[in-house]
């Protein structure tokens, strides 16, 4: 080791930035706050790349890199260290998180320039980076869980950043609570792991699992553990049925949506499933559940995304859908493909959100696509970068999304754990993805600018202006990545898969395939083309059609546009009973009637007693004399009684 790896620098530098901005940011200038926020994250990013460079040049027996720092818990035989672990998988995650995070920090400097609470924003954002990096670099499940909870906290803080707005505060709470439900599953899984293996450290745990003899293996409830881990992942990564917090999370500032709810935090579930692949390999039922949940979520969210009018909500449902793809990939044991899509998704979805932020910024705050349009010529930089991202996500060949999505679809069909049903549903989702993304593209950038028709515009057109350079440069960087990032995964010669093959040995393929990879690839391209064509038809050529179709579909359309009333359902089934129960039972009956009444009774009885005793102090001299005489008589009687005894 020349200079030492000092892995701890990578997560802890942003923590230092968060602390500095948190404690001193209030009285500092915006430039200082931004400088601190950028410097620490930038340093962390640079150091991550340095570690990556060293890693790349290490001989195979010296990886993975482990940094053991402090022993944290020592309870009998159960030991948990604060240790960081860098193997190929965490290296990829680490680089994606720190690089995309840094880019978004730069963008935020421009986007949040006129907002209050600037120092709070950067402090929380740095705090998020700390927790996320801890999550991906952790060497044990417990440390990962700390990162897991921490990013949930940062997410809550940032979603509710504009805390004076009721909707934002409620959204933050919703995100945290729904996450918590998933975390419950995650915790039970951890308890089971402790019970059967006595350790949560990745190295010890995975070697113990690997060395399990078949008889011993049947005792361990791998399926239960896998399902519980899946529950945790569903909460964090917004899969069915715990996805409802993500669309509401759009109340937060757009860079937050880009970083946390697109590129990094929501991918934590995918990372966790990939990291736990040894467990899932021994729990095929759980793995199937992962694939099914992912596939259904992808399709479900894509259908909702088609009917949304808020640009950020479309992207939110799109994120849920793409995460479903990643889960589907892991569910067919194509973990590398899932992580590859995670990476390309971070590029193009991050870009989509940032560009959407730029669009919203340009039209003065409106987020409703019905009142956009014709922006192509007015904000060209935003337009071209967003186009690159849209092409990527739709799976247009040669863009990054094409390679990653296609690999998933191929593996869903060809892997032993896969099935053509998954592939078919995935293909349908790809068609829908292309459709709703290009719907967004056409509505936002083409046609007439409809800003004057917005309800709060009062007939005036907002002044449209391109965003400042500090916001545009990140867009361009991400656009470049969205285009070239895919070449790492060229089908058949995937450098990405080769890099990760140490962590994920190649999964079994189903023997003979009726269809070849090229045929499936062609079908994907056809699906994407159909989606784009349909969007072009409905939102560019014949703009009268969408309304007519919506009218014809009537109830179905309303259901989809209202997100299938899932939020309302949850509210009625879970939220309402809890709130009413709390109000009627816990508050009125117990708190008011029982506890308060007891306290008041105590006070009232003290009052009654003192009322009685008050008569002794009437201010009337003769009554005092009476009391003295009575007391003396009592003493005298007592003496006589003593004497008589």
């Amino acid at each position, binding site marked *: 080791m020349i200079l030492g790896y000092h892995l701890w620098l990578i997560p802890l530098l942003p923590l230092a930035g968060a602390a500095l901005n948190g404690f001193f940011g209030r009285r500092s200038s915006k430039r200082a706050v931004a400088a601190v926020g950028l410097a620490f994250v930038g340093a962390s990013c640079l150091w991550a790349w340095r570690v990556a460079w060293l890693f790349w040049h290490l001989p195979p027996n010296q990886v993975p890199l482990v940094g053991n720092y402090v022993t944290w818990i020592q309870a009998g035989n159960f030991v948990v260290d604060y240790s960081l672990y860098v193997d190929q998988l965490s290296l990829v995650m680490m680089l994606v998180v720190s690089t995309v995070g840094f880019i978004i920090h730069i963008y935020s400097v421009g986007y949040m320039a006129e907002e209050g609470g600037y120092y709070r924003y950067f402090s929380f954002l740095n705090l998020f980076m700390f927790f996320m990096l801890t999550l991906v670099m952790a060497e044990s499940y417990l440390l990962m869980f700390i990162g897991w909870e921490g990013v949930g906290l940062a997410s809550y803080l940032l979603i509710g950043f504009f805390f004076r707005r009721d909707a934002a505060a409620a959204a933050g709470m919703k995100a945290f609570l729904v996450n918590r439900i998933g975390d419950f599953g995650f915790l039970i899984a951890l308890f089971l792991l402790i019970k059967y293996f006595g350790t949560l450290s990745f190295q010890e745990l995975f070697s113990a699992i690997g060395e399990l003899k078949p008889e011993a293996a049947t005792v361990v409830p791998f399926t239960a553990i896998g399902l519980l881990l899946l529950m945790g992942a569903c909460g964090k990564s917004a899969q069915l049925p715990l996805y409802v917090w993500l669309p509401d999370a759009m109340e937060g500032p757009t860079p937050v949506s880009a970083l946390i709810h697109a590129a990094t935090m929501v991918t934590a579930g995918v990372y966790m499933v990939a990291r736990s692949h040894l467990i899932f390999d021994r729990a095929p039922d759980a793995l199937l559940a992962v694939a099914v949940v992912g596939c259904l979520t992808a399709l479900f969210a894509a259908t909702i995304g088609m009917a949304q009018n808020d640009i950020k909500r479309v992207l939110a449902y799109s994120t849920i859908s793409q995460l479903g793809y990643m889960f589907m990939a892991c569910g067919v044991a194509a973990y590398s493909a899932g992580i590859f899509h995670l990476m390309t998704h971070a590029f193009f979805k991050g870009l989509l959100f940032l560009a959407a932020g730029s669009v919203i910024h340009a039209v003065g705050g409106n987020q409703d696509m019905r009142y956009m349009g014709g922006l192509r010529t007015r904000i060209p930089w935003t337009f071209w970068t967003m186009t690159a991202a849209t092409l990527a996500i739709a799976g247009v060949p040669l863009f990054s999304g094409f390679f990653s999505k296609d690999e998933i679809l191929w593996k869903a069909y060809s892997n032993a754990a896969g099935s053509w049903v998954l592939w078919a549903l995935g293909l349908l989702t790809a068609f829908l993805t292309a459709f709703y993304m290009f719907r967004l593209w056409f509505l936002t950038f083409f046609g007439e600018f409809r800003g004057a028709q917005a309800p709060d515009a009062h007939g005036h057109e907002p002044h449209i202006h391109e965003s400042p350079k500090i916001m545009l440069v990140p867009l361009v960087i991400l656009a470049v990545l969205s285009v070239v990032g895919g070449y790492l995964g060229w089908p058949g010669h995937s450098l990405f898969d080769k890099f990760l093959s140490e962590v994920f040995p190649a999964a079994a393929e189903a023997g003979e395939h009726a269809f070849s990879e090229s045929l499936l690839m062609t079908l994907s391209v056809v699906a994407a083309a159909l989606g784009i064509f349909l969007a072009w038809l409905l939102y560019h050529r014949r703009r009268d059609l969408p309304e007519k179709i919506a009218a014809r579909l009537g109830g179905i359309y309303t259901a989809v546009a209202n997100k299938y009333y899932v939020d309302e359902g949850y509210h009625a089934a879970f939220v309402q009973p809890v709130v009413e129960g709390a109000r009627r039972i816990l508050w009125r009956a117990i708190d008011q009637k029982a506890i308060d009444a007891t306290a008041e009774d105590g006070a009232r009885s003290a009052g009654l007693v003192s009322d009685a005793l*008050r008569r002794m*102090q*009437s*201010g*009337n*001299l*003769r009554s005092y*004399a*009476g009391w003295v*005489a009575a007391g003396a008589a009592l003493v005298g009687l007592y003496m006589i009684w003593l004497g008589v005894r």
Partner: protein
Amino acid sequence: MVPLSYYLVLGAVLFSCGVVGFLFKRNLIAIFLSIELMLNGVNLSFVAFAAHWHRLSGQVFVFFVMVVAAAEAAVGLAIIIAVYRTRETLNVDKVNLLKL
């Protein structure tokens, strides 16, 4: 000899008269008189016992009681004068500034 009980009964009667006067009289000076009467009743009992059992301690105690009575009378009369000066009355029912 006069039996002891005669003296004790007399002492008790004196004491009771003192108590009744102390409780029911309204004039401050009358109350004080009653207090003195109580003290004297007690004195009589002490002396009676001293004579009966030929012990001097009873008689010595009477001296103590008289000294205390004298001191108390002095202080008490000073208070009565002060009360009269401020409240213009010696009616104990009217000295009730501390009444609720």
